[in-house]
Each structure stands twice: as structure tokens, then as C-alpha cells.
């Protein structure tokens, strides 16, 4: 009865939302195999406390590995840990495709001599094989891939936001997983640095994203976007490539074909013309609102609702309206 192994990412002591998405995906796949969903939880001392949340999302067993050397991201030791655990008859290893997950998954696959499906948006069992969908050619084409692993597990990385974290509560059994070898004896040393402004809400996790483009004319005008995001209360701030290339916003804020792909419930595009490379990064949003002074801008072709107007007039008005709306409760 093959099972599914998943990796839970913990950063700064917090369980990342993507870990819950991965846990839910693992639960669904494990059910297709009639097996169990197991999770590896590693980090500094005390990380085991997150096992409960993982159990809420379908994990049967949590392998907890607490070690000082895991307090920082430790790709070599971590991939060894996951690979070692994965050799115990699992059908698949699922890893959430965050920046760290995308780093971890190929290492695990190589250590296992396994095949890998990367950045998938849907996953299912088909007999002996796994079938997944994955956006290719900058999101212009969707590929359906088939992994026939034969013996040994397959490794799959999941696109953030593509799988929903669904409750499937059970009591999770906790086991310890001891790393073989010394996890501090590694060649690659990682030290996490906090972001320049410690915004808690990440683009992959925010239900609302307010994004700004060239139409804002100058870096300081991004304040309009930030104010609108603050008015929503649960919004993150994104940017187009033009704006990050010019240095107005950091690269990690860039939404587009080569930046972040996001799928929030609401995406508000401010002063963005809608070049195809930006659209590729946000077209999966549930609802898109566009504000631009050019009625012919391509963004209006993908927006559900559009307002043609001067962003310097419309955005403050919208900010005030949203604030008032939220104040009403």
C-alpha cells in the first residue's frame, strides 16, 4: 500500500501556507493509492509543534527532525533526510514549489535517482503513473505530463496557490526522524536575511494583490498602491517587470512570466498596460480589476472590471471606498 511523502516548509519558526497546500495534495493522492500521507517536518528545536496543523490537513504520520543545523535552510542535509525517508516504499514525494521547495525537490530526486515533475498545477494517479499539468512556454501552453516511475518514488513539486489547503482532520502520529550523518557538516552554508521591509504577507499567500506599473510615473508614487493594499488589510503589493527593472521595487515583487506567478482571489492592476509577459503571471487570478488612463490598454482585455481614468484620481478614491467598506464590517 504505497504512501505519499510530503515536505513541510517552516520558515522563521512559522509553517508556510504552501505546506498545508502540499499536505492536502498529498492526502488526495494518498487516497487515490489507498495509502497514507506522511510528512517530514524539520527545523530548529520546537518545530514539532506544527505537526497538529499538518494532521488537520490530512497527514497520518509526521516525521519530526529537530536539530539546530536545520534552523537555517540546509539544502544538503535536508535533501539527504528527505531522500532517506523516501526510500521506504513511497509512491511519490510532494514538495511545495516555494523558492526553497524548488531548490529542494531536484536534489531529492537526484539523490533518489528518481524522475521529477516540476511546478505542477494538478496531479492525479493513473494506474502505475502520475499525471500532472504544468504551464509551459511562459504560460501560453498547458502541458499534461505522465511520469511512469517504475520502481521507486517520483518527486513532484507543486505550484504555490494551485492546490487548495483543505481540512481533512485526523490525529497525526509523530515519529522522530534522525538525520544520518551530521547535518551541520555541509559545504553550502545558508543564512536567511530578513527582507528590507518586513512585510509579512507574501504574494503567494495574499488573497488580494495590488500591483503597480509604469503608469505610476515615479517610484515614490507607489505609495498609492501601498495605501490601497493597506486599505484592503490582507493585500500584498506586486509590480511589473518594467518597474522592477527600473529599481522602483525589488525583483522579488515582480509578477510576470519570469517573476512570480500568482493566483489571488482579487488582483488590482494599477497603471499597468498589460504586456503579455505580465498577464502570464496573473491571469490565474479569480477576479481582475484594471485601472489605466488608456482605454486601449491590453490589460482591459483580461480584466473582469476596468476603470478608465487617471490613477492619481481613481486609486485614492478607491482606497477611501475600500476603507469605508471595511469599516462597515
Amino acid at each position: 500500500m504505497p504512501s505519499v511523502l510530503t515536505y513541510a516548509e517552516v520558515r522563521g519558526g512559522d509553517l508556510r501556507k504552501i505546506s498545508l497546500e502540499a499536505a492536502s495534495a498529498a492526502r488526495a493522492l494518498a487516497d487515490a493509492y489507498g495509502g497514507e500521507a506522511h510528512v517530514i517536518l524539520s527545523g530548529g528545536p520546537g518545530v514539532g509543534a506544527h505537526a497538529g496543523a499538518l494532521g488537520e490537513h490530512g497527514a497520518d504520520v509526521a516525521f519530526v527532525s529537530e536539530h539546530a543545523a536545520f534552523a537555517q535552510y540546509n539544502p544538503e542535509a535536508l535533501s539527504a533526510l528527505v531522500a532517506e525517508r523516501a526510500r521506504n516504499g513511497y509512491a511519490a514525494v510532494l514538495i511545495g514549489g516555494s523558492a526553497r521547495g524548488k531548490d529542494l525537490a531536484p536534489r531529492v530526486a537526484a539523490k533518489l535517482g528518481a524522475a521529477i515533475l516540476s511546478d505542477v498545477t494538478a496531479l492525479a494517479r493513473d494506474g502505475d503513473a502520475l499525471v500532472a499539468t504544468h504551464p509551459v512556454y511562459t504560460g501560453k501552453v498547458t502541458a499534461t505530463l505522465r511520469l511512469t516511475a517504475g520502481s521507486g518514488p517520483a518527486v513532484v513539486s507543486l505550484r504555490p496557490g494551485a492546490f487548495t489547503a483543505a481540512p481533512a482532520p485526523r490525529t497525526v502520529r509523530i515519529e522522530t526522524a534522525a538525520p544520518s550523518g551530521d547535518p551541520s557538516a555541509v559545504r553550502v552554508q545558508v543564512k536567511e536575511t530578513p527582507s528590507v521591509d518586513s512585510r509579512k504577507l507574501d504574494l503567494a499567500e495574499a488573497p488580494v494583490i495590488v500591483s503597480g506599473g509604469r503608469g505610476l510615473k515615479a517610484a515614490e508614487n507607489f505609495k498609492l498602491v501601498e495605501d490601497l493594499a493597506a486599505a484592503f488589510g490582507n493585500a500584498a503589493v506586486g509590480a511589473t517587470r518594467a518597474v522592477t527593472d527600473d529599481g522602483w521595487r525589488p525583483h522579488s515583487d515582480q509578477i510576470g512570466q519570469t517573476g512570480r506567478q500568482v493566483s489571488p482571489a482579487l488582483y488590482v492592476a494599477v497603471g499597468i498596460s498589460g504586456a503579455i509577459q505580465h498577464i502570464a503571471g496573473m491571469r490565474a487570478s479569480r477576479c481582475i480589476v484594471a485601472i489605466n488612463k488608456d482605454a486601449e490598454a491590453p490589460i482591459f482585455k483580461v480584466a473582469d472590471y476596468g476603470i478608465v481614468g487617471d490613477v492619481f484620481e481613481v486609486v485614492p478614491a478607491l482606497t477611501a471606498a475600500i476603507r469605508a467598506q471595511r469599516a462597515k464590517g
Partner: protein
Amino acid sequence: MSLSQGIFLFCLAMGAAFFAYNAQRLVRYLRIAGGGSRLNDIPRRIWNLLSIGFAQTKILRDPVAGPLHASVFWGFIILQVGAIEILVQGVARGFAYGNFLPAPLHWVFLLSQELTAGVVLVAVAALLYRRILVRPKRLQGDRVHSGDAILILAMIAALMVTLLLVSATQRVINSEHPVAVQPVSAPLAGILMALGTSPNVVEAILAVSWWSHALLILVFLNYLPYSKHLHVIVSLPNTFLSNTSGPGRIGVMPLMDLESESEHFGASDVDQLTWKNLLDGYTCTECGRCTSVCPANITGKLLSPRKVVIDTRKRTMELAPQLVSGDAPNGDIREHRLLDKFITEEELWACTSCRACVYECPVSIDQLEIINELRRYLVLSESRFPEEVQPAFEALERNGAPWAFSPSSRAEWAAGLDIPTMAELSERGETPEVLYWVGCMGSFDERAKKTTVAVARILKAAGVRFAILGQEERCNGDPARRMGNEYLYQMLAKQNIETLDRYKVKAIVTNCPHCFHQIGNEYESLGGHYEVVHHSTYIAALLEQGRIPLSQGQAGAQRIVYHDACYLGRYNDVYDAPREVIRQALPVIDVVEAKRSKDRSLCCGAGGGRMWMEERTGKRINLERKEELAATGADTVAVACPFCMTMLGDAGKGTDGYVPVVDVAELVAGRLKA
């Protein structure tokens, strides 16, 4: 031989020898550069010499300085006849035209000299007044040697005064000619006599005047090589040797041999230009007309076409002696090369290749050719260009278009219009009357697509059997070539020629003036020979033939100003066709002209690849032009180029009093019978 004859002969010989020395030196300097013969199409060259040179057609474009200079120039020629007499007299005492010319002819000669001297004197006085007191803007600048100009004017004045004194004193001594024939020196002679000047003094004045005049001629002649007045010698030959007013196709950039084993492509220093470019340097009179019509300079950019030419001359005078002497150079002779040390990148990239400078130059200098060769060097040899240009180059390589659009989207504008492609026609074994070449703007730009559709509708309404290349069309290569990327240009051009020849295309009507210029004029040197017209010319012809059914209804009185596209106007002399199209499309219409129109039209700012570059200094060129167009009081601006459409359409958007921009084809299409 008398002592004075001997001295004079000595002076003459010295003067001639020194002049000959300088002449051969300057010719040797020209030889450091390349370039071949320029003796094709002699009839056209002779015509240029006669019209631009002798008839001073370009000089006369300035209504004040023009006649003044023309007077001095023509006067100069006429006075040469008298100068010869004087120089011969110095050696052969007693030589005089009067000795062998019949009296009436001699009187004509005398009168001509008198009147000319008088006119020149007045003109010189006016020119001195202009230079010293009026100080027009184009005569100021850091490369302008005003002292040189004033010195020359003073010398010319002195030549005239001494000449008249010679005549006057000769009259006092022996007044053999009628007063009517010497209307200036006669009164002068009268004054001398009235003053009771003694014969000795008169003789002295004569001698001094005569010697001064003769020596001044020799001094003047030998001063020329060291002055901007070298143009006196070289401007007529330069006009003869120039291609700026033909022969051959105007505004065609020379083809580069990219297979050559040479180390450098383009020019970074004067010996990598052609001898003609260096001759242009000699010829520059520093008049500043080129700079005064340069759209970049007018709006505050660093570029000055005059400076480019004067710098070429300066560098030639610096480098050529070193190269010609063959001595081992001390230090790096390239350290001070033309590029960077004289002419900077900022100046070079500011150029819109509008050709106003070339058109305006009275002595047929080609400033643009030097700018283009330096650009070629920057791009091909050093890969140095504004960074915002790189995506355009890469898109041209990848997509055959200067933007991020794939060839498969090219014919989207034609959806539902039932327009066959060449591929479709070829499969059926048919050929169209004409190929409609749409161009990249017309294929991809939302606003320009409306013009594309308008032209297509007009062609259909006129019953013209046409086809498009659709997805097989590629950028004509003009942006790449004008930005200096000759390699990319030739790749694109050859690809297009191959496609056109495969379909055996002969007749083409283009949407855009740049496509028109490229395919019609520049593709020839790569082996592409086609009959190409721009859509305004084609539509004008159709209207003339009555082939376009226009509705008869009155279209309320409108006031329209037409903006001449550089690549239609100055490059190809197409001024009237678009105006005809407007007039015929809208019968009740007031077509007004901007202050600078037709061959003086101010560029919209997009040419020379500047459409793909940021404008970072000074006033925006398109705004400058749009304001001028709006000042005519017109309620619409008409254009015939998609780039002008974008530039002028964008200028002033969102402000009060915004004047909309339409293509002439749209005016016609709007009046098609339903």
C-alpha cells in the same frame, strides 16, 4: 624688367608657390581616408554645380543672408576678371584689357567691375553689421570662428576700396572713360580733384592702392587654407562631387561589406571615413544653417550638425599630418580619435536622420553620412548603444519586428476583410496588380492598424487587385540600419528580397514612408529592384483617375494642417500627393501650412531609430512640432506616416486644445461611398 616688376613677380611666385604647397598638402590629407570615384551621372552633377553652386539656390533660402552672400559670390566671380588684369599688369607693365578690347566691350567690363565693387561693398557692410551687431543665433557657437569671418569681410572690403581707389586715381591721372561707365570711381575721382590733391599724391595713392590690392589678393588666396573661407576654393568642387541632391538615390546609406577581413566596421576616426567626408570638413563655412534646422538642436540636445563637420575638419588637421609624414608617432595617435574625444555618443544618438541639415547646407555637405558611419562603428565594433535599444535589436533578430510581436500576428488587422496573401494567390497561379506592403507599425500598432485598414478599404473600393505578404512580411530593416546595425539590416533586407523575388513581385504600395524608402531606394544595392510608391501617391493617382467612389455629401468646413514626413518629403520629394489627397477627399476644406513646411518641415522626432530610444534632455521634439502645427489654428493634423502619427498623436494628449491626428488615407476612407 623694372624693380617693381621684379618684386611683384617675386611676390606672385611666392604667393603661387605657397598656395600650391598648401593645396597639395590638403589633397594629401584627403588621401588618408578611403572612398572611390564620384564621377557617375555627370549631367546631374553639372546641374547641381550650376544650380546650387553658381545660381546659389540653397544660399537664397535665407531671405536676408541669401541675397547678401549671393551678391558677394557673384561679385567675386565678376571681379576675378579684373583681378587677372591686375596680376598680369604687375608683371607685364602696360597690360590692360582696354588695349585689345573694342570700346563697348571694355566699357561693359569697366561698368561690371564698378557696379560689382559697389554692390559687394554694400553687401559686406551689411554682413559685418549682421555679424557684429545683429548677432543671429546660428552665427554663435563654440565652433564658430567669428574673428575669422570678420577678418575676411574686412579683407573683402579692403579689396573693394583699394580697387575703387585704383580706378579713381587712374581717372584723375587720365580720365579716358565716360563717367557713366565708372559710376563709383568717377565721383571718387571728382572728390580727389576737388580736394586739390597734387599729382604726386595721386600717383602715390594709386601705387599704394594698386600694390595693396594686388598683394591683398595674394594674401587672401593664401589665407584661405587656414580659414573657413577655404570654401571659396572647394565649395564648387564639393557641390559637383556631392550626392546630396542626387545623383543616384537620395538619402541612401552606402552598403557595407560585412565579409571584409577588416578589423573595424564603421568609422571611429577620420581616416575611416571617405575622402569626401573630409572634403566636406574643408568646405564647411560655419554658417550654422544645418544646426538651425536640426530638430535635436532646436529642442536643446547636444547635437549640432555643424559641430560634427567642423570636428571632422579639426581632427583631420590633427591626424593627417601625422599619418602623412610617416614619422613614428609620439604617443598614441588614436588617443584623440574623432569618436568620443570630439563627437560624443550623446550627440550621435540624438540624431533623427531627418536630413534637414543636409538639405539646408548651401555647399552640399553630408553631415548625416558622418553621423551614420560613427553610429555603425559604435554598434558593430563596440556594441555601444543606448541600452533601451537592445530589446529592439533582439526582437528584430527573433521576430523580424522591432517589438515583442510574433510574425504570426501580422495579418490580424485583415481579419474579415477578405484580402488574399501572396502565398494564396501563388497557389492559384495568380498575381496581383500590386503588393500592399503593410510594415510593422501598420501590422502591430493599434492606432496604425486603422490606417492599414483604411488603405485596404480604399484599394478595394477602387477595384485594385492587391495582396499582402501577411505572415511572410518582415521589418524592412530601416530601424536597424539607421541605428548603425548594418549586419542586422542586411539580414532582414536580404530575407525580404528573397521573399519578394520568390513571388516575382514588381509593383508595391507601402503603408509607411520608411518601408517606401527602404524597398524603393535602399534595397537596390542589395539586388532588390521594385516599383514602389507610398500610399499617398498611389491614392492620389487613383483619385485622379476617378477610380475611388467618394460620397458627394458636404463634409463641413474643416481646417487641416498637413505634416510632411521626412522620409516622404526631404528624402523622396513627395510633397504634393498627400495634399492633393486631402483636397480631393474633403472638398470644403481649408488646408493650411505650418510655419516650417515641405522641405523645411520639422521632424516628428521618431526617425533615426529614435522611436526606440528615450528622450532625456531638452524639450520633446514631438511636442515642439505639435505646438507649431496647432498654432495654425487647424482642428486636425493630417499625416502620411505611422511614426508621425504616434509621435504627434501622443504630444499634448490629455491637455486642453488637443488637436487630433489622422492619416490622409483615413480622410479618404471616411468619405467612401457606403
